[in-house]
């Protein structure tokens, strides 16, 4: 049982983000791409928040978000995207997939931790 699922194909980002969140007292599990993310989410019903990269091999973050709402019928989990850019088209897809937040990289741990705690409780 973990509270937060961190999905990123970069092991550096995965480690850095999850270590920071663990340090802040949150429980974290990781996935390497969208497909892996969906599997992890299926396996663990305790996940309340998904923090995901956008561009990933196999399945990108937005597709994963759409499948979480569609295939998994999981409307409850909060989804926050880590991104480097932000186009109107992306925002539109994100809105449809119920994406709650956009965090432009580089990630600032201190700015997110309080909100993340609120989202998982």
């Amino acid at each position, binding site marked *: 049982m973990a509270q937060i699922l961190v999905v990123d194909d970069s092991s550096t980002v995965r480690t850095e983000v999850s270590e920071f969140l663990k340090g802040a007292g949150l429980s974290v599990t990781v996935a390497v791409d969208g497909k892996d993310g969906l599997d992890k989410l299926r396996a663990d019903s305790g996940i309340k928040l998904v923090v995901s990269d956008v561009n990933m091999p196999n399945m990108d973050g937005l597709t994963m978000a759409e499948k979480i709402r569609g295939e998994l019928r999981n409307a409850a989990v909060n989804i*926050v995207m880590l*991104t*480097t*850019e*932000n*186009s*109107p088209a*992306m*925002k539109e897809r994100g809105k449809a997939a119920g994406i*709650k*937040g*956009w*965090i*432009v*990289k*580089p990630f*600032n741990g201190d*700015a*997110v931790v309080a*909100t993340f705690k609120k989202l998982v409780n």
Partner: protein
Amino acid sequence: MTIRQRIILLTLLTFAAIAAIGGYAMLQAHHNAADVKRVTEGVVPSTLASADLVAGLKDVQLATMALVFAPDANTLAQAADKLAQQQNHLRQALTLQLQQASNATQKGLVQQAQQSVASYFGAIDDTVKFKQAGQQDIAEANLFASVAQYQGELEQVIETLRVEKNRSKDDAINALNHSLARTATTLSGVTTVAVLILGAIGVMLYRQIVRPIGQMQSMMSNVAASQDFTQRLPVARQDEIGRSMLAFNTMIEQIQASSSQLKQKTTDIQSMLQNMPQGILTVQAQKVVHPEYSAYLATILETEEIAGRDVMDLLFSNTQLGADTLAQIDAVWGACIDEDAMNFDFNQHLMVGEIEKTMRDGRVKILDLNWSPILDDDGNTCRVMLCVRDVTELRQLAAEASEQRQELEIIGEVLAVSQDKFHDFIIGALRFIEDNQALIRLHPKGDAEAIAQLFRNMHTIKGNARTYGLQHLTHIVHQAEHTYEALRQPRPDVPWDPRMLLDELAQVRAAVERYARINEVSLGRKGPGKGQGEQYLLVDRGQVHDALHRLETVNTNNLIELVAARDAVRKALRLLGTEPLSQTLDSVIESLPRLAAELGKLAPRVVLADHGYVVRHQASGLLKNVFMHLMRNALDHGIEDADTRMGHGKTMAGTLKLHVAAHDAQVYLTLNDDGRGLALHRIRDIARARQLLPADAHPTDEQIARLVFLPGFSTAAVVTEISGRGVGMDAVQEFVRRERGDIAIRFEDQRVGAAFRAFSTVVTLPEALFEHIDTPVIHGVSTSAAATV
């Protein structure tokens, strides 16, 4: 009366009218029915009955006839019965007629008939008696005579009655018809009146209700359309409409109040946006700048094209920000706008707080940016507000303040070292630097021995600087020493780069020279001490300390505070190494009374007007020399003895005036006296005698005046002990010119060609030798002590 009451009244009136009309109609119908009944059941049958009387009379006549002519007794008896029966009928019929008589005429006629019947029946009885008595002939005669006579009478009476009855019947029917016609007329009249009255009331109600409501509605529509909330509906009624109008007026009053409040707030905001010396803009979706922004933003960004622009283009183009940072900011807008407020927090660290923006003409402005979200009712960031402040000046002032602070600290450091020691330190340090420079140039590829020497030299400078507590210098020297130390290592991680080393050395030299300059210029301690101890400093150490403290504690974000601190410190710094003119000329002025005594004159008054100019220490000696000569000259050649002066109506003691003014980076020191003036004829004669002027020349007054600056010129008949000794005006001119100044004589009167002319001597010197301070340190009068003797 309220509208409700009016409507109730109208309804009641309608009911009353209908009831009245109905009641009247019923009453009339009742009357008419009675009349009809009387006609049909009374008058008509009675008329018919009157016709029956004729028949009854005939019956009696027939019965009488039958009796009279009865053949036998039996028939006679039957006829007698029949007659009696018929007589009875007739009598009853008359009785009935009497009862039915409708007027006195009829009644009289009936009574007349009854009397006639009585006579008639009497005659019949007589006849019957005769018959019964068997006297047939008498009976018959009686029948034709008296019976027939009475019968004839009776017939006439009955006929009259019948005619009367018929007439009466026709009257009754006519009366009935009249009555019916009248009823119809009255009813239609009443109905018409009722309709008219109700119509009138209806019109009145229409006027009083519908029309005012219509007016109210049109006025309300008018207010709504014009949005002119100063309008009021005229309230002249107490009813529901009046109250509605009152309520409407109250409502628009409130709307007016809140709309004017809104208008006021909008105006306030607009006026703030127009006038605040700060740039404010908001950014909407797609990074577009909202059309409402503060006017000052145009001043800051130096463009009027703001509304609708892409904020990245408007604000962040031509800045020091790298492509990566720009890409991050570019992504931030989309991540925040129209998204949950938390996204603003998530991304706040990417919102840069200060940018350096290059303007079109190449100037760089430092802009302080303050970001804040504008949230909608759903808690989403609908726009991002940016407060833009031009902090270029602020940053410059802060840098200036920091520079001043460093300078004050250096002053403090320098003051702690004696002049001699400091002088030696500077000379030594510059020598070591020269040495290092030569070493670096000598070894383009580096050399261990040279590096060791470089290090030793720099280490010595650092050691001395540290010993004397010259911390700013120590810090810079340490950097250079550190480089040499690195180069000294067996495998140095820095390369031997002569250019870099020379640059570094230049920095050390600049630092040493800065210390030297502060020592010489600010503190006026040029060269080694002259054995007279430390020179007097005008600004005491407490003041330096205060200034330093002020700079250490100043709020670098507050422009006004920074300006005030800078100005205060600038003044303190300016006063360093300066003295008031009165102090510079102190010894000169003090020497005048004794000189005056030697010349047999009274000590002069000396008036100094420095106009806020103080003298830098390096100009002090020059001014002493120059004005020693000029003032003594004035006392010797210009100011007359007391008797001569009194003869010219002057005060016994003369006056020397010196005033200071500045113009075009030059300071003008103008000296004049109230003596006899410049002896132009004597100057010309001497010049001719000394062949400084051709004998046939006709110089102007100005040309003559300039002769006094020629070498070896002296105007005194005898070389006096005073001004003839030492230097002449040529030497004074030489001193002044050496400091890039000049000296000239200017006439103060218009008496061209006169033997003596009033004049001033104007000494011009570069402004750099002076400082101007806000308020004159000295202005006023310095009277020599001997003047009062």
